[in-house]
């Protein structure tokens, strides 16, 4: 072997920033090969995938609309992941947020008040946090694995929404179809840009990112999260309570997902339906890792993932590419990122002994 892999004395900070870019470049290069193989002009395909969806103001606004719930969920999840608390149930917490927030409208649908929407958002956060509190309780009290509990609660949440939509919360004027009333003006997210679907939820996402950055970088609880995740024994040595951090990170993640849920139903969806999310809570896990669990990274990762969805649709419409192209792209980005991540802790060196090593 000409090259060998050598551990770095300490993790390379430069590589932490470079590897996502390297992964992107490798994905672009590799996908050009895929497109050629499919018989499509690779440059045209890339253009349709990355540029065309956002080449006008409307497209850019759609990108933000799609990225908003991803970023909200991912920022909440990232805090937990840093502390080794594996919340896989953001999809369920998002659903409960929609239920709680949307439920307020269902019962107060005649009310025309400026406090209705803020109340819905607050309730959405509470609903999501409550749902995440269940795995937190089970973990701190019974040491139940939060991956399993939070994931299984996703199905419970979906069925709960279905129960409500088909039953007591069904729109009386809806011909018995399972949907709630359309949300009124005072229950709808205000638009930021007329003529687009860009709504206040995006502002909430930005606030969430900034707040999380502040918390992680500057507060004691943020420090505790990082230490407990990196070296739990050091955390206990420092007197940091693992149980408190488990509760905090799960409630925080749940609240963020809950806000994402209520933002979606009071924004682009406009009502409660049996299916209000195409899996944002799960995709957000990818976004969180793609963004290196760092608030700024998550913004870029959320935008990138959203772009792959939009690009996939554009590629289907304009070039007749198959729907699988979206999944292939996302898979490649993740794959190359994981591969390039090796370079953070290791580097290549020439094997100078001249012999085959290993």
């Amino acid at each position, binding site marked *: 072997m000409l090259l060998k892999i050598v551990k770095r004395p300490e993790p390379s900070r430069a590589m932490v920033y470079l590897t996502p870019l390297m992964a992107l470049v490798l994905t672009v290069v590799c996908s050009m090969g895929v497109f050629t193989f499919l018989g499509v002009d690779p440059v045209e395909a890339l253009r349709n995938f990355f540029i065309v969806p956002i080449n006008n103001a409307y497209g850019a606004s759609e990108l933000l609309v799609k990225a908003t719930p991803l970023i909200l969920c991912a920022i909440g999840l990232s805090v937990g992941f840093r502390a080794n608390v594996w919340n896989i149930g953001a999809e369920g917490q998002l659903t409960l947020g929609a239920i709680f927030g949307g439920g307020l409208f269902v019962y107060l649908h005649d009310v025309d008040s400026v406090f209705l929407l803020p109340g819905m958002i607050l309730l959405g956060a509470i609903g999501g946090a409550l749902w995440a509190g269940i795995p937190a309780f089970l973990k701190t009290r019974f040491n139940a694995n939060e991956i399993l509990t939070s994931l299984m609660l996703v199905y419970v949440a979906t069925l709960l929404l279905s129960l409500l939509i088909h039953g007591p919360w069904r729109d009386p004027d809806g011909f018995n179809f399972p949907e709630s009333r359309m949300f009124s003006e005072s229950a709808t997210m205000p638009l930021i840009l007329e003529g687009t679907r860009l709504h206040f939820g995006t502002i909430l996402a930005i606030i969430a990112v900034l707040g999380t950055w502040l918390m992680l970088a500057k507060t004691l609880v943020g420090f505790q999260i990082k230490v407990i995740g*990196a*070296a739990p024994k*050091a955390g206990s040595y420092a*007197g940091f309570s693992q149980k408190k951090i488990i509760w905090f990170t799960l409630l925080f993640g749940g609240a963020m997902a809950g806000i994402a849920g209520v933002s979606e139903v009071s924004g682009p969806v406009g009502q409660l339906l049996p299916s209000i999310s195409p899996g944002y809570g799960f995709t957000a896990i990818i976004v969180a890792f793609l963004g290196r669990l760092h608030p700024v990274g998550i913004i870029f990762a959320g935008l990138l993932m959203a772009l792959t969805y939009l690009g996939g649709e554009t590629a289907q419409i304009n070039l007749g590419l198959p729907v699988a192209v979206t999944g292939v792209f996302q898979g490649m980005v993740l794959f190359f990122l994981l591969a390039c991540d090796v370079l953070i802790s290791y580097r290549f060196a020439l094997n100078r002994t001249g012999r085959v090593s290993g």
Partner: protein
Amino acid sequence: MMIGTNLTTPRHDDGSKRGPVRLKVHNLSLDSHEQFGIDLNLINFDVRGGEVMGIAGVAGNGQVELLEVLSGEMLCDEAEHLLLEGTPIGKLNPTERRELGIAFVPEDRLGHGSVPDMSLTDNAFLSSYGQKKLISNGLINHKKSTQYAEEIVAKFDVRTAGVTHTASSLSGGNLQKFIVGREMLQDPKLIIIAHPTWGVDAGAAAAIHQAIIDLAENGAAVLVVSQDLDELFAISNRIAVIAEGRLSVSRDIKEISIEQIGLLMGGTEGSGSQKEAQSVA
């Protein structure tokens, strides 16, 4: 011999400066929850201000459990088992114990005493933020933390490229000096140090020993737990042996020899007088 280091055997002055009892461990018993843990059984000892108390023992005889219960990572069944200047502290957590002026250097420097991938500044903050007031207005004061880290590096001669580098980038000896320095510069009333120079080069070991002696001379109560008898005999005023979760009666260092301590550590009976063996209780 290492080039460039000044190796002096740390000398330890004895007795006259010892103050009142700082730490009293009274009838401490604790059942271990670990599968291969050692139960602690009626442990009794004192540490006075100005003295270095050494606890010798072969690893695996209850040191880990004892250290955990002293640092607060494990709580006592009753608060009165541990008394700091008369105040029961057995139920206090590590943060509360630090507020009372207790400092700890744990056995494992990487992963327990420090977070390997965090900077020295962050690692300085880790255990000292309360005592050194590194939090202002609810936010971490990064500048003050950096200054503290740099003070540690300067005073304890830690060889590093800078306090922004990670703990894992330091050699064993330098990291140990850093952690010891971090704890000592908090001006503790009582400091508990586990295996102070395990895996540490001779120059750093000498520096650490001198720092321990100096700290005691300035009035702190020091408890050292170690396997290294030479070390304990060099720096301690008094010494006891831990074996199978029980502690021997502590003795003045001048009244006992290394060989006798070694035999107690081995758990043999019948060497010396019967009293000797029965006093491991």
